[in-house]
């Protein structure tokens, strides 16, 4: 297939138009190029071109110590970077055999579920935006801001968080974190309810989304879809349940599934997942209160960077600091695959270690990359305006697509 298809039929009655949708189009929310063959408003065929923001993370990762790879994972799915960060930390912990305390697991669950909510807020409000409803976007988007304030309080950063360390967190949640979390848990549910009341039974919204871009479950499996997109087709695959990590088995929550796999179902699955995330966060806060206070990392001095004041005053801490930074700690020579449920689906880390300070090979299984390849085939015969909301509902994040 040629990269830029050129139509050569000269008959004016059947001639199609080549339309470059992207790479930077205001309607695509990211760097996506699709070269579409249009017959009037309908798409005859399309070719996706990706790689515009490819940054060679897998190559860079082969030259960095484990703890310096965390900021690279930030920039994969930057709408829910804490999930990437912690997925990476858990991969390394699995490799090194580190067992984290329960309290750390619950802290992670709180942060990960908050980022899942912020990820779904973006996706669902953007679907509304693209169908012409700007109000819900403005209403709900400020709650993403509140989530970012919590992140800021925990780690000092908002978007590219670099949150946590291998073995736990760099510091404990302080009182302001809990205060902000409480405020969020009280104010967000009514706002989400209002958001739902603006869209879920909205005639215009249903007309635009229901029955559009339906995907059958077998097709979704064939294309290795995962996450809310796969669940919208009716398959209840969720990594949090299938292979619980970070003590997800301690929580009670439901996995929402759809029936038609259309845009409306994806929207509703994401909405319901936000409610379930709230449930999980409430349980996690409760469980955390029962654990021993002040535990925020595993007791692994060979891998967890000691606090700076100890490095200057304590010999062991200085030695460990030096060993960690210079990469003198031995790691097992083996390979590990660990996956977490990211905002878009199964986010996997395939890590091969040769015993050195950096991975021998690190491969990211990026859900956006794998989900997006169906976009061009499924756009055939679709109206252009439907294809636009279809792209928003896939929630493809350019950073994760191109790595």
């Amino acid at each position, binding site marked *: *297939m040629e*990269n830029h298809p050129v139509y050569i039929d000269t008959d004016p009655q059947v001639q199609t138009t080549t339309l470059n949708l992207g790479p930077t189009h205001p309607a695509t929310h990211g760097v996506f190029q699709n070269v579409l063959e249009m017959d009037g408003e309908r798409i005859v065929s399309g070719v996706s071109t990706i*790689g515009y923001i490819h940054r060679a993370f897998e*190559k860079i990762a082969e030259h960095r110590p484990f703890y310096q790879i965390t900021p690279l994972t930030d920039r994969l799915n930057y709408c829910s970077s804490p999930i990437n960060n912690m997925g990476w930390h858990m991969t390394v912990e699995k490799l090194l055999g580190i067992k984290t305390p329960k309290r750390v697991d619950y802290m992670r669950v709180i942060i990960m579920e908050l980022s899942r909510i912020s990820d779904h807020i973006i996706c669902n409000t953007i679907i509304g935006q693209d169908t012409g409803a700007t109000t819900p976007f403005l209403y709900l988007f400020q709650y993403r801001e509140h989530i970012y304030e919590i992140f800021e309080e925990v780690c000092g950063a908002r978007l590219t968080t670099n949150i946590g360390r291998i073995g736990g967190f760099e510091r404990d949640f302080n009182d302001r974190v809990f205060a902000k979390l409480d405020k969020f848990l009280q104010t967000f549910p009514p706002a989400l309810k209002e958001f739902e009341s603006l869209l879920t039974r909205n005639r215009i919204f249903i007309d635009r989304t229901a029955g559009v871009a339906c995907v059958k479950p077998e097709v979704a499996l*064939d294309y290795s879809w995962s996450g809310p997109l796969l669940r919208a087709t009716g398959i209840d695959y969720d990594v949090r349940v299938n292979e619980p990590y970070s003590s997800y088995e301690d929580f009670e929550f439901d996995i929402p599934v759809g029936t038609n796999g259309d845009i409306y179902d994806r929207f509703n699955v994401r909405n319901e997942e936000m409610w379930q995330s709230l449930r999980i966060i409430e349980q996690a806060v409760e469980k955390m209160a029962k654990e021993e206070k002040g535990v925020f990392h595993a007791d692994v001095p060979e891998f967890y960077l000691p606090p700076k004041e100890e490095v200057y005053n304590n010999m062991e801490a200085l030695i460990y600091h030096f060993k960690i930074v210079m990469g003198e700690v031995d790691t097992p020579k*083996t390979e590990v695959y660990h*996956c977490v449920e990211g905002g878009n689906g*199964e986010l996997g880390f395939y890590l091969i270690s040769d015993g050195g300070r950096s991975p021998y090979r690190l*491969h990211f299984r990026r859900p956006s990359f794998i989900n997006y390849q169906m976009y061009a085939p499924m756009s055939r015969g679709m109206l252009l305006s439907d294809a636009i909301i279809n792209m928003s509902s896939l929630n493809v994040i350019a950073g994760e697509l191109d790595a």
Partner: protein
Amino acid sequence: MGKLSNQEVLQKLTTRFGEQISIPVEPFGLLTFETGKENISEVLSFLKNDETLKFNYLTDITAVHYPEKELSIAVVYHLHSLSNNVRVRIKVFLESENPQIPTATSLWNGANWMERETYDFFGVNFIGHPDLRRILNVDDMTVFPMRKEYPLEDPNRVDKRDYFFGR
């Protein structure tokens, strides 16, 4: 964790393929074995279509470069049986000069971009792939950058040499 144990999966595979399957290892409970490129299509389709195994979900395809080995490119498949909740990892070692392997796109459409990515970075030629061209790198690139012989940075730089850091 899964309903099927690794032993049962392995039992089925060895009765079907016998010597074609290498001695398996289980790093962190994930059944890993090697096979040859002559068998990979059959192994994949057996795993996918077998009535009890049902490895119907292709999680990932990638490759690894081991320059010190004779067959230096390893193509790695991760399969997942959703109904049994068990995973396998299959490795196929290929020579580094023009590595060739049959495509998996006939079994899963999702393999399309995964194989393109593997081709793009390692130069693995997937025979029978419908549209094998570069995906993330620029089209006119001539090398396969994830191979170990390509350095990350300019090798002539001296300010990052190990001896400056006591290594």
